[in-house]
């Protein structure tokens, strides 16, 4: 792997797939000309985030013409973009499509829908049930959509399946301006988790958050790339739309993994045994 990845930190128009798609195509076309190999947009980048009843109205089958435009452009550059997917049987998913070589080659359906506090995804969306890797011509990628990243399972699945980079498209709000921290506390939390994930998994962690407001809720931006040593190598500061590029290489992965051979020493079968015991025991305590 030796690829140039562009993060596109956008401010999608809520519910306007047509105008969001136009912006996607313009940005992807521009960065392809600049020599990037991959361009990544945030979670639900084609629709906006707080969809409520619009989720049903905006859902697209993977064969939709709107996605075809991205597929065609992916002959020039690989593209990751968020949309609402309507499956063949009619389920609605928070989905992230990866387009390459002229077609939609992979779709990740968000596994861990977020439904607490200000979020209510489970009310409108079905949950995905797998963490699969994308065999891109640029490397092996795993996708964790925002809340997916807060659960260790997906991270571990991509770790043991030897991903080169874990892509984390998000719609993370800006929250917590207390004087005891610098910047938004929600953004600091994300940075800590992204840094830790890079160290634990020894992969590139590519985080793409959106900006802008939806009914008073600000999205925090701060898109960034952390290398397998846990060092930030690219970042978009602030709450403005923007782009940044990072170079992802196999040599960096090998150096990190050579210095600290976590993968060599990992024992996934120990975890598998523990999970088997957990399943046999059941999650809840018996009522006596």
């Amino acid at each position, binding site marked *: 792997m030796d690829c140039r990845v562009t993060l596109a930190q956008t401010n999608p128009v809520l519910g306007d797939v047509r105008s969001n798609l136009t912006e996607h195509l313009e940005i992807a076309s521009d960065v392809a000309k600049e020599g990037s190999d991959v361009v990544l947009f945030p979670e639900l980048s084609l629709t906006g985030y707080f969809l409520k009843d619009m989720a049903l109205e905006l859902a697209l089958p993977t064969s939709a013409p709107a996605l075809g435009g991205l597929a065609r452009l992916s002959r020039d550059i690989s593209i990751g973009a968020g949309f609402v997917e309507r499956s063949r049987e009619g389920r609605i998913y928070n989905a992230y499509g990866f387009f390459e070589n002229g077609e939609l080659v992979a779709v990740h359906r968000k596994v861990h829908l977020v439904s607490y506090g200000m979020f209510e995804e489970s009310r409108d969306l079905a949950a995905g049930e797998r963490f699969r890797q994308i065999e891109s011509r640029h490397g092996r990628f795993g996708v964790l959509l925002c809340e997916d990243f807060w659960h260790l399972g997906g991270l571990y699945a991509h770790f043991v399946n030897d991903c080169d980079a874990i892509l984390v498209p998000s719609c993370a709000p800006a929250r917590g301006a207390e*004087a005891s921290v610098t910047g938004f506390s929600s953004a600091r939390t994300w940075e800590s988790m992204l840094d830790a994930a890079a160290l634990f998994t020894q992969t590139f962690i590519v985080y793409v958050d959106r900006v802008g407001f939806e009914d008073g809720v600000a999205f925090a931006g701060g898109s960034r790339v952390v290398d397998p040593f846990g060092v930030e190598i690219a970042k978009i500061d602030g709450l403005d739309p923007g782009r940044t590029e990072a170079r992802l290489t196999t040599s960096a992965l090998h150096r990190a993994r050579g210095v600290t051979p976590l993968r060599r020493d990992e024992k996934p079968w120990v975890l598998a045994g523990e999970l088997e015991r957990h399943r046999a025991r059941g999650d809840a305590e018996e009522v006596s």
Partner: protein
Amino acid sequence: MSRLDIQPELVCDLLVRFLREELHSAGFSRAIVGLSGGVDSAVSASLSARALGAENTLSVLMPYRTSNPESEAHAKLVAEGLGTPTRRIDISKMVDGYVEPEVVNDETRRGNVMARCRMTVLYDLSVDWGGLVVGTSNKTEMLLGYSTQWGDAAHAVNPLGDLYKHQVYQLARYLELPPEVIDKAPSADLVAGQTDEADLGFTYAEADELLYRMVDERFDAEELVAEGFDREFVRKVAQRVVRNQYKRIPPVIAKLSRRTINQDFRYLRDWGK
């Protein structure tokens, strides 16, 4: 440092962006703010001037004949400091046209009529000015219900609704608003000599400390008492928060159909913007 302390520069930046984006997405580039001479409206006007330009923010002074002249003087001071265009509308005739023939002597009723007359003026001028009404209600008064429904609580967008009074003061100092406005006792000025804290029976500082733990940190009553709050104060504030929920949400609709507005017809206000 208080646990309520904020980073004023960060908050100011967010709120300026909020006003700019929410107004622009609704198709507006101008705003209108009712300036009372108090700290909340001064902060709202200042944020609006930063977001849209002072020339695009209309400050409106709306004294009643019994209003404290100091209120108007302070409102003028704020508007002049910001450099906003200003309108002065005396609401005395408007209010008296109703309260005198109807013999409305109850101070609360009279105060509510004044607040709603000011709302009527602001919403009417907003059409002429071509701007949206920017709110001035902070989180403390919204939680306590210390406002007039459809009066001072009426607005299109509110930059202060998630800031406790303590945090509004912090922002006011950061925005370098006149000390006269920041340092005086808060007053709705609906009755001569009235102060908010005398009305409420406790100080904003006390209410902020309690509400922050109760609402933001979700302490229950026993935990609040263990933190040193007086049990009766906790009960009184909690009761105000519950009783005034109706002021914070749209009116209740009787459900009949399969799809009822705000129940199962659910869209953001930014829908289609």
